[in-house]
């Protein structure tokens, strides 16, 4: 049975169809990419799955349980964590305290939450940042902290919303290694929204493409990069010309180029 199954999911905001009849499923241990132009409904899909939005119609099944009608905190307690695209931390919490909030989902004891948070920070190699306030850190480190916080809740499935946005190529290398570690080393199933093609095409087992709220393609990275609908909707003719279609080794461009060439 599929680990995560989304069936005919539709979400409308007034007259706007943000997600329209999206169906896909995901196996445990998979690493899946979710791409598409801005406004395609990627984050809305994440919000629906994680319970922040109530869905208009359709069904979401996670680990054999129908979670469609559950509230966000109930979904989280079943082992489905997520990060946010824009998350500006307030001046109140330090890095380790942030991660502890996540860890407190599984324990009432501060000492245990603290120990677990320290473990995660060490695992992600950011334990030297423990006592900084999150907004004192560079963006790349903030992204790692939001990932660490989500991991603190000990999820089985982790949804990452644009963790590589706004990072330089070096930092993208770093976060790619981290995602791989979270997936392979920690054994967490990962689904990620990403505009950085280099990252998403390199590490995903499978990619889903959204456009105008609909799923227009699904397949392995190689097939996706050759798919004419995807090229038309998102990657762009120039992008494919410059970087060549098919070989995932050549995905050196960043999102800006891809999005630019849409016009």
């Amino acid at each position, binding site marked *: 049975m599929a680990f995560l199954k989304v069936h005919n999911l539709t979400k409308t905001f007034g007259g706007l169809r943000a997600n329209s009849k999206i169906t896909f499923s995901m196996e445990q241990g998979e690493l899946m990419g979710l791409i598409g132009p801005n406004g395609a409904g990627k984050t809305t899909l994440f919000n629906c799955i*994680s*319970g*922040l939005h109530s869905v208009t119609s359709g069904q979401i099944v996670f680990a054999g349980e129908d979670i469609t009608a559950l*509230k*966000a*905190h109930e979904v*989280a*307690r079943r082992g489905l*964590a*997520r990060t*946010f695209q824009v*998350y*500006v*931390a*307030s*001046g*109140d*919490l330090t890095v380790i*305290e*942030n991660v*502890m*909030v*996540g860890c*407190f*989902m599984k*324990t*009432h*004891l*501060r*000492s245990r*939450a603290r120990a677990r948070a320290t473990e995660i920070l060490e695992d992600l190699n950011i334990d030297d940042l423990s006592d900084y*306030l999150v907004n*004192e850190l560079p963006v790349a480190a903030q992204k790692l902290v939001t990932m660490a*916080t*989500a991991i*603190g*809740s000990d999820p089985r499935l982790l949804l990452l919303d644009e963790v590589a946005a706004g990072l330089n190529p070096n930092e993208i290398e770093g976060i790619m290694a981290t995602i791989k570690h979270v997936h392979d080393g920690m054994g967490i199933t990962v689904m990620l929204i990403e505009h950085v093609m280099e990252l998403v095409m390199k590490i995903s087992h499978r990619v889903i493409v959204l456009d105008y709220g609909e799923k227009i393609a699904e397949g392995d990275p190689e097939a996706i990069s050759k798919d004419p609908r995807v090229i038309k909707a998102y990657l762009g003719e120039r992008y494919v010309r410059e970087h060549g279609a098919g070989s995932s080794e050549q995905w050196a461009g960043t999102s800006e180029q891809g999005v630019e060439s849409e016009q």
Partner: protein
Amino acid sequence: MEALKNALDFSDFPRLDLFIAGAVGIAFIVFPFFPHSSFAMATMIQFLMFSLYGMGWNTIGGYGGQVDLGKAQYVGIGAYTTAVMLIRWDVPFWVSMPIGMCFSVIWSFIIGYPLFRLKGHYFAIATIATSLVLKDLFEVWDFVGAARGLEISPIKYHPPDFLRLIFKEDVYYFYVILVFFFVGILYMNWFRKSRLGFQLRSIKDNEDVARSLGINVHWAKVKTYAIATAFVSMVGSFHACYIKCIEPEDTMSLDISILIALMAMLGGAGSLWGPIIGAGILIPLKSYLKEWLGAQAGMVGIDLILYSLIIMVISAFEPRGVWGIVEKIRRRKRN
């Protein structure tokens, strides 16, 4: 056991802070042995009471970021429970205080459950409204003395009466509230490190993030509101025995609600010492301004002008109050 350990553990504060806090604590304990005016003593008691109100407010308002401007209703519930039970049935303070806390907590669930569906300013306004409605109800409710209020007449008792908390000298009241004050600090020290404390700070940060970390945001707020309420109600009960004369107009007025919130914000919302610092600045200032400028020079309302000035200064310069400034300076030095 870990809760107790956390409550007693202040080791995450810099040594200087602990030294100052310890020195101030000892100064409070020995204060009555030094010559002082009764006015100074009354101000001290007011300061301790308002510190406790502020600590209560700080749980939901400071750590949770939910600006609550209706705390006076719980002062009223606490005070009235104690006064009514003492006058009508001669129930001692130590029994009526917990009962008052229960009433307050029940009331806080009744209004907190729907109120926390509201956010930001709407929540603040709704808390004012419930507080005023309750005050109006008490003003027409004959059982509790209506607008005339209630008077605990000390002649009926034999002070010092430790069971009913009826004393002739203020110094007894001072020590009782000082014990409450120290226990309050320990409780707050536990609270800020507890799971609920962490959850609230996350909620203040971003509610969606909090939800996605498995936090039941609405329930966490309602629970914390009940804790804040219990604090305020406890001091309200004390207030009844101390002042001995309570009426809706001064125990449940909007002034008190605003003063409670203002103090915590001035000192530093969301920090352990904030409400105490805030009360330490505002209460003496208020008392002396009233005494000197208000009564003698006939400038009634000068304290209100002062409050509004403080609100403007805080919101313009440092939303995290005096303690926010201290922390800012420290961080700058460290980095």
